[in-house]
């Protein structure tokens, strides 16, 4: 019942994966090391920076703050999955358009977190967008361009749906 390793089966970006994992391995080390999904980045590995953000059963979580072994039976989506599905295509376009990235290290986490805010498609002030993204660090952009890109995407989506 208690183990140092365990075979887990989970869904990653829509595909079923079965692997033997060490109990100590956190989710993003597993995604990067075992599955080669290097879109999820490791910045601080203690839950501060947000670069490792992934979706667990539909909700954004810190990938470094859960163990891979805990994802047994879960559905995980990474920035690769969100990109392939086209869910954030407009957001990515606006990031490029607005130069909302420089080194790009924080970008996957920013996209996944912003995608959760955009999912609701409800009007948000810039202050609310800033608050929503407050758990994701960026060291290059000063955040202004990121907030712009998210705001533009939200505005475009609201226009489209009205």
């Amino acid at each position: 019942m208690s183990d140092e390793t365990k075979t887990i089966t989970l869904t990653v970006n829509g595909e079923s994966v079965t692997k033997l994992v060490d109990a100590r391995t956190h989710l993003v080390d597993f995604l990067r090391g075992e599955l080669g999904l290097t879109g999820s980045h490791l910045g601080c590995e203690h839950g501060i920076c947000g670069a490792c953000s992934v979706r667990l059963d539909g909700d954004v979580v810190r990938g470094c703050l859960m163990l891979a072994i805990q994802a047994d039976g879960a559905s995980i989506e990474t920035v690769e999955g969100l990109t392939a599905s086209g869910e954030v295509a407009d957001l990515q376009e606006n990031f490029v358009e607005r130069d909302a990235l420089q080194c790009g290290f924080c970008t996957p986490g920013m996209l996944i977190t912003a995608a959760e805010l955009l999912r609701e498609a409800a009007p948000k002030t810039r202050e609310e967008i800033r608050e929503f993204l407050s758990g994701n660090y960026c060291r290059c952009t000063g955040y202004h361009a990121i907030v712009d890109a998210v705001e533009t995407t939200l505005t475009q989506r609201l226009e489209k749906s009205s």
Partner: protein
Amino acid sequence: MKAPKMTYARADSVAQALALLAEHGDGANVLAGGQSLMPTLNMRLSKPDLLIDINRLEDLAGISVEDDAVRIGALTRHAAVQRSPIVAEHLPLIAEAMPHVAHVAVRNRGTFGGSIALADPAAELPACILALGATITVESVRGRRDIAAADFFKGLFETERQPDELLIEIRIPCQRPGTVHAFMELSRRQGDFAIAGVACAAETDGETVTDAKLVYFASEDRPTLAANAVAAIAGKVWSDESRSAAMAALSEDLDPMDNLQGSAAFKLHLQRVLTGRVLDQAIERARAA
């Protein structure tokens, strides 16, 4: 920044979790949301022999109203508390505090009971449940017991919970007519660790605070009730003088610890400022009610 080698067990029932805790006690860590435990593992600040993962114990999650109290299961995620119409209606203090509890990704995973069990002195929820006079239920193979919030927080990350006990639920009295709640926190960035903060549950009669619980966090080694500040204003009509009296009396209640967020003197100053603001807001809300 990688967790040490360790053994992991996923509990599929409360009974199983309790049996594991009885067997391993101090050597085991309960893994709930993991939003504070995982960093300590990654930084090798803790090295449990066994991790007991309780995330599948659905019985421990949920929010309901029973006998004029809101029951929050220990495994209820912060995000669920934040979205809960029950909490919004009956526990406005908790509803007001939730946006300050870390960031969205952490709230999606972190649990209400985990925050209480950890007893981080900078955390919002221990202060709130102390202000609201909550009761905490813990269970072990030896049985179940209730602990008043006032008896639960013993020191820095120390609680009345024994190593073989699992936190089951928190019962928080619903807000009663004639009481007002207010919550304030200062931090560098929304969702970061608090530099100073206060949870206020006040009973008012017109412009007079008749009684209040003012609980400060990010200050002492545990959430701390300010009896002297309340005594300075109880029964008096709220005024500039009573605001000053409460702020002055606070130095008899608090002796803040220096930490990375600020010096003791800075923190005491901020807690004083928050005292005036939070009572202003409580009176304003009492007027509006």
